[in-house]
Structures are given as C-alpha cells and as structure tokens.
C-alpha cells in the first residue's frame, strides 16, 4: 500500500510518501469506516479532493489526524471557493484542520499549479505546508519553491537527492514578490 522508496522532499529531508488520495466512491461501496459516509477514517495519510473536502468540511474538524487537501491543476479557485470578497475570509483553511494542501502537476509543462500556489497562499491565506505532487522534476522544484511550495513529491526516475540540491540552483533571482526556496517573504 505504501511506497518503499523515499521521494518526498520536506523540511530539507527526504521522506517516505505516505499520503493517499481518499476515494469517496470506493469507500461507500465498500466497508463503512468511522461511521461516516464520504470521509476517510481518522488515520494518518489521507488526502481529499478540494470539492469533497468543502462538502464534508464540518465533519472533518477536530480530527486527531487532519486530512490533506488535493487540488487538481484545472481547479477554478474563484468558482470553487466563491468569488473574492465572499470568500476572501481568512480562516477557510486552518492548519489545525488541514494537514497540508497538495497541488497536482499532471504534466510538468502544465504551469497552472504555480499560479494556484500563489493564490492559495496570498489570497486564500494558507500558511501551512503546500506540496507539489504529480510530474515534479529535479528541474522544476526551484520555481515551485519560489511560488510558495515547501514540500515536493519527486517523480519516479528523478533522484530526490539531486532535487534537494536543485533548491539552491539560483542564489539571487530577480522577482521581488516571490520568495527564495524556504525563505518566506517578510
């Protein structure tokens, strides 16, 4: 069920990836766990899709093991989370209730995740762990880190150690409104 080769860059370390995407359909068809339909059991590792999480948000508070949220690259945040103003409420994503937010890169050439990351951090007020998943390469982690990602699930075939080193590829890039890897903007 879990992977055996560590490939998750997090806090300067290479860790085993243990996150699993919760499939509500499979859960309801199978055994009822936890007494609730549509949410994963209160165990480590679970991630939920953004729309499913929004729907079940009230049921996911005060868990021992908060879930992670999975955002696909074609997500229209304004449409999903409401127009700005209505949902510029800070506090939608609380670190007490959300373990991390993962943004998917279905292909490394799909750059929407970079803008989604910027919006999640700057507009929707997420200050916790932001994870890049999917087609994440040695060659893209630097840009990802500058856009606010702080953990990276490196794709198979790419040496996670080299990816860790790649976070230092450029020491003084130009753009002032984007952070250096691991150094939040003041």
């Amino acid at each position, binding site marked *: 069920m879990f992977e055996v080769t560590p490939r998750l860059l997090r806090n300067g370390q290479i860790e085993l990836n243990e996150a699993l995407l919760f499939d509500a359909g499979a859960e309801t068809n199978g055994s009822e766990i936890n007494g609730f339909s549509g949410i994963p059991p209160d165990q480590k590792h679970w991630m939920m899709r953004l729309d499913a999480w929004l729907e079940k948000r009230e049921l996911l508070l005060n868990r021992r093991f908060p879930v992670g949220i999975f955002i696909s690259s074609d997500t229209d945040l304004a449409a999903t989370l409401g127009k700005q103003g209505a949902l510029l409420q800070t506090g939608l994503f609380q670190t007490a209730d959300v373990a991390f937010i993962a943004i998917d890169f279905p292909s490394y050439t*799909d*750059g*929407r995740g*970079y803008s989604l990351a910027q919006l999640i951090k700057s507009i929707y007020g997420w200050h916790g762990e932001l994870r890049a998943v999917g087609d994440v390469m040695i*060659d893209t982690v630097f840009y990802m880190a500058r856009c606010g990602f702080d953990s990276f699930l490196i794709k198979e075939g790419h040496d996670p150690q080299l990816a860790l080193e790649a976070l230092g*590829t450029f020491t*003084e890039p130009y753009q002032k409104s*984007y952070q250096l890897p691991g150094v939040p903007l003041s």
Partner: protein
Amino acid sequence: MYIYDEIDQRLVEQRVAQFRGQTQRFLKGQLTEEEFRVLRLQNGLYIQRHAPMLRVAIPYGMLTSKQLRTLAYVARRWDKGYGHLTTRQNIQFNWLRLEDAPDVLAKLATVQMHAIQTSGNCIRNTTTDHFAGVAADELINPLVWCEIIRQWSMLHPEFAFLPRKFKIAVSGSMTDRAAVGVHDIGLQAVERNGIFGFRVFVGGGLGRTPIVGKLIKPFVEWQDLLTYLQATLRVYNLHGRRDNKYKARIKILVKDLTPEVFAHEVDAQWQLIKGGPDTVSEAFVTSIAGKFRWPEYDLDTEISETFYFSQLSADTKFNRWSRTNVHPHKVSGYASVTISLKATGAPPGDISADQMDAVADLAEKYGFGELRISHEQNIIMPDVRKSDLYMLWQELQLLSLATPNIGFITDIIACPGGDYCSLANAVTLPIAEAIQSRFSDLDYIYDIGELDLNLSGCMNSCGHHHIGHIGILGVDKAGEEWYQITIGGRQSGALDNHLGHGLAHRARADAGAGGSGTDSAGANGAGAAIGRVIGPSFAREQIPDVISRLINTYLRLRDSEEERFVDAVHRLGIEPFKKDVYADPLFSKSLTLSKETHV
C-alpha cells in the same frame, strides 16, 4: 548598453551550470526526450532539419562590439561560420551539436549573453524600437523599461510553463516601430497629466490566427507596470487553453472571453497585488538607468554637419545610400545607420563571422561600440557622427554591407524556410533571391517607394508575412510547395513605421499606437493591419511575375508618388490588384492547379 553587475552575472552562470547538468543527464539517459525537450527549448535549443539550432537572446536588440565578436567566435568554432538574425532581434546558429551547447552558453555568459527563454512556452525576449534611446521622437527611453521587463521576466517562477509562448514589445516613441499591435502584450508609452505610463494592448499576434491586439488598459502608470503584467500573465496562465496548442495563445483567450471581460479579470487580479513588492520605485528605475553605459556625445557638431553636406552633394552613390540607410538622431551632428543584410543573393538576415568581426570594428571606430538588431533583420549603428558617414559608407561597400534598400521592396524579411527549418512547408530563401533579382534596378525600387515585403515558410509566420505590405506564405499541399499572397498588411500606424528614409524626411506626428482595437484593414489609419489573401496560391517560379503585376497595378493606380503601396491597397481594396494578377494568362494554369490545393 546595460552592464551586468555581480547578481546578473551569477544568474547567467548558474543557468549554464543548470543546463550543463540537464544535458549530461539527458545524454546519460537520466532524462527522457520528453522531459528534456522543454528544458532545452527554454535554453534556446531546437532540434532542426540538420542539427540543433541555438537561438541566442539579444535583449531588446542591443549588442556590443565585444559581444558580436564572441558571436563570430561561436559561429566559427561551433557552427559553419555564420549566423541568422531573427525578426525578434535575436540570432540563430543552425549547425550546433547538442553536446557543445553548454560550452557555447558558457562562452556567451563571459560576455553577458545567454539563450534563456528564447523559445518554449514562456515569456520571450522583449523587443523594442531599433532606434530606442536615439530616436528624435521619444517620450521615454524604452531601453530602461525593456531592461526592467527583462529582469522581471527572466526565470520568472510563476510563468515558465504558460499555455504557449508569450511576446512583449515596448514602444517609447510617438511613432511605433516596435509593432506593439502584433504582440501578446504591446506597451505604448503615453503621457497623461504630466505623468507617463503605458497603453496596454493584449492578444495581438501572427501565426495561424493573425489578429491585432486589443487595448485593454488605456493607461497604466509606470509604477504599476510590473504588477499589471503579472496580473495579465496570471489570468492567462490559469485560463488560457491547454487542450489545443493552436488555440493556446492569449489572443484566443481574449477573443473567447471578450476583451472587456478579460480586462475585468486582469483588473481583479491586479487589485490584489497592486502596490505590492513588484511595484516599480523611482529609485529602482534610476538604479537600472545607472547601470547602462550611455554614449558620451561630442556636442561640437557644426563642423560635422557641414562636412557631411558637402560629401552628400559630391557623391551621388553616397547620397543615395544616405537617403535610404541613414536616419535622424536625437543629438544633432549624429545619425543612425542601417547596415543592410539584404544584398541580393545573401539569405535575408544572414551574417558571416567575418562580417560580424568587421561590423564590430566599425562600431568601435565610428560609434561607441554598440549595435542594434532590427526586427527587419538588419544591423543598426545607432550613433555615428555625420562627418564619419562617408568613410563608414566606403568601408561598408568593401564588405558588401552598403546595399541602399532599407524600407524598400528588396529589404525582405524572411524566415530561414524549408532549407533549414523542420517546421517549414516551403523554401523562402530562393524566393527572396528571385524577387531581389527581379527588382535589381535601384531607380525603379525607389520609384515604387516604401514597401515591406515579408516572407514566411509556414503559418507559424516567423517572417511576419501577415504584416507585410506584400506578404508571401509558403503552404504545403499534397507534398508540393505553393505560395499564398496577401496585400495590405502593415506593422503599425498608417503614417509610417520607419523613422523616415533619410535625414530630410518630414516630421511625423503620428500619435497612434500599434493597435486601434479593431482588426479591419484600413480602419481609421492608426494601428497594425493584417494583410488579405488575394486568391489561390502560386507555384514558386511564378512569384516574381506576381509581384511585378502587383507593383504595376499600384504604379498605375496610385494617386501620387506620396501614396505608398499599402496606402493604395487600403484606398482601393484588393480587388483591382487581384483582378490584374489573375487576368494574366500566365497564371491560369496556377489557378486550375491550385483550386483544390489553395488554403
């Protein structure tokens, strides 16, 4: 010339190190072809017909003698002894080995050059007026703003993987010579209540869906330029189509949403970041301007003028070259010179390593060691003392670089075409040569007057055929090369797009920017226009005759010598031209043949 500081230098060196690592991983099989493809593209490397092609950035077309000598070195050591200047003010080498690319880039970095973002779906090299900084009609100096945009866009972390390529052009003058109406973003400097800012056109472009840009913001104050660009790019990055590469340019998004809705979306994003860290401060502009090495002009100009005028009257050949290839300068006593790379028989925009070295020497001897590349694929010497023009001209003649044809029919813009490019449907270079040979009589081409003839080998439109007064497009049908002709295109405002031909040109006060917000050819004069197809395509050998007939129709119908070809097309429509061309029995065969095949 902008001079790198330590930070600038370190960035390009770190980029070379990164790409060296990527190339090694690819050659060792640790990166797949698909993974490596975009990484190499963003370092300027295409896989072409014969070998990888390297496109080297010449930011906003500005180049020093030292840099040009290094390009000559690259051409000799790693290529076949020449390079090709592009319509985006860059230079391409067509015969490199992939294994050598990191060494070439390392060599370029030693002279503050790179190939970063010269291809791929990212923000490309920002282009501008080739007379930027020296033009007499400038509101602001676009070089400083181009450098600010260069820094902002280079290795931009959010916009490295856009739906499609993205091109920005800046015009700082009253007359737009940067073709801002046919770029993804076109910025035209304007002044309002004593404050300067930019008019923002979005969604112009050529390619298979040619369209002129829409004015989405009449005025963005200079402080807000980068945040406004950021907001525009963010809307595009999130919402531009990614399912079909032919519908992925920002122009399609602007069209689908409508310019009004697009502008509204940008504004909503902009409000969130306006005034943020990327706001441009006066201190920042001053610091960037301070990192340029500006020419120190000799202001004792009276002698310079007198000397020049006596030589003009003494030598008619020199006089002729002066009228076409010498342009006014903001400092009296100085002029800018266009070195024509459009001699008959030489591929347009090609320059040999020996010519590069020679031009580099001339720029030091008769200038401040600085050069510009024009998007018309010529080289500009921006600061020549008028008293030196005669000697410069004599030296250029010895180098076959004094063709007096700037702005005329033989000053052809052409992509490398099917001889080099694997995308091309048809060859372009033999067509250019055939047209140049047909129009070899200088008096005749001067009588025809200003005429932009642009030639692309496929609908990717690298030769900008849509905005040629006469455009030629290579099309492939059933494995055969055909050529489609358009007329009435233009790159900017109707009054003019060249800074006059010769010093005696009339002052032009065209306040129009690149796009007037409409597509229609001929609408109200201001703005770029897309040429219209005259009819079925032609075979290669027919092209010179077709061009001749178009010209004959124009000469017969123009209302005066002042009316340019393109103006006549806009006044008369394409019908009389079309009728004359297809009435020729010579083309009846082509008509029959191409009925099924023309696009």
